[in-house]
């Protein structure tokens, strides 16, 4: 049977890995290809590279980063952040990315999802969604611009739409949980994952192995994405995998 995926996420600014805490206060933690290779060797199932560069020059360095990573690791990797159109998607795929993730551009131009999945195949089009619970707890709103702008779109409506448009996977980040290290937003994940026909990647809030375990035991996602618990060496991937396996969760074993 298919195993649950562990996905370290590398936030990249101007060609260097950084990690944001609630999208504020960045701290440099390494070189993208080196860090990606370390995770590959430790047994990561996939890697996400998220470009958070604010400038045009910063974004241009991303192509080089992708090319370097493609030569260093032999597992799939996804590139997101600042991908605006079909040309950006083509450039990232040609540079060696296996998938791209669309966020703000998908909200601005939903048909980009349809065109991209038609041209490149649904399997390489991930739609990233940042969502936050409404104050009256009546549901969740979709945010863009690194969580600064409420689009007013309802999460479930948007999920339904992106599936219709041909998204191959959904990467769902809880704005409430992100950066807190208090665990994934299980309620929100459960809501989205129930009856979802495509794979779901859980993101935001991971602070411990138990948090990942909870996602898989509750069966609310196909993959768990995390950054800080891997970056700072407190929870090495082999240890995470070993513990998940002991809890009866199917993870990929490797040599």
């Amino acid at each position, binding site marked *: 049977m298919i*195993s649950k*995926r562990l996905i370290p996420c590398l936030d990249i600014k101007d060609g260097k890995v950084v990690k944001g805490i609630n999208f504020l206060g960045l701290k440099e933690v390494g070189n993208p290809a080196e860090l990606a290779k370390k995770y590959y060797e430790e047994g990561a199932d996939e890697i996400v590279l998220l470009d958070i560069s604010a400038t045009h020059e910063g974004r241009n360095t991303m192509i080089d980063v992708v090319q370097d990573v493609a030569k260093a690791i*032999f597992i799939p990797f996804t590139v997101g952040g600042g991908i605006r159109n079909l040309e950006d998607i083509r450039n990232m795929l040609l540079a*060696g990315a296996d998938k791209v993730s669309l966020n703000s551009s998908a909200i601005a131009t939903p048909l980009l999802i349809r065109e991209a999945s038609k041209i*490149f195949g649904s399997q390489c089009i991930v739609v990233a969604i940042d969502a936050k619970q409404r104050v009256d707890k009546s549901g969740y709103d979709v945010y863009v611009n690194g969580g600064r702008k409420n689009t007013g779109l309802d999460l479930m409506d948007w999920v339904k739409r992106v599936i219709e448009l041909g998204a191959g996977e959904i990467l769902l980040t809880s704005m409430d949980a992100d950066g807190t290290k208090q665990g994934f937003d299980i309620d929100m994940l459960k809501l989205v994952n129930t009856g979802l026909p*495509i794979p779901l990647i859980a993101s935001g809030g991971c602070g411990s192995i138990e948090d990942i375990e909870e996602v898989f035991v509750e069966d609310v996602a196909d*993959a768990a994405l995390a950054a800080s618990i891997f970056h700072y060496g407190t929870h090495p991937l082999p240890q995470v995998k070993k513990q998940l396996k002991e809890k009866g969760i199917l993870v*990929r074993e*490797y040599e």
Partner: protein
Amino acid sequence: MIAIIDYGVGNLHSVYNALTAIDCPCVITCDPIVIQASSGMILPGVGAFKDCMQNLQDSNVIDVIRQEVNNNKPILGICLGMQVMFEKGYEVEACDGLGFLQGEVTLMRDQSVKIPHIGWNQLQQVKEDPILEANNNVCVYYVHSYSASNYDINDVVAFSEYGNLKIVGYVHKGNILGMQYHPEKSGKEGLAMLNKFKEMCV
């Protein structure tokens, strides 16, 4: 020298990078002379069955591939590259494949699981094979919505289970090899398989 057959679909570089990592000389090409001179062929594939066959046609590589396969040169089809080696595909519309392997390629149907089948799945080996030596039950990376059906069971080396489906993971018939998963994206174990293929191509 292994020829990675280029028929204009892009993303051939992951196969190229993987072969380079195992010190396997290779070239991305659609030139019949280069393909003839190669010691083995890899047919990658991304996209839909019909488009893939059309692109192979437009690139004028079908004749040389067929001829080299008849000359007993090893060929490894990866993902869609494996699928088009069967007789027929039904993605979007019915379309003839290369017909190196008996069987057809149909949409996977199982209400209990998500389609496409994306992620790492265990290979369940059903017979011995030089490529999978000591690789029993290894996990490999899949990403696909269609899979082989009505195949010759004798060609199958390994399956993967997904919901109620038994997906053909790896087929091997003489000089014809096909992997539904991506060995170039299946970590060190995948590279080891490509290395075994390299050893076959001498």
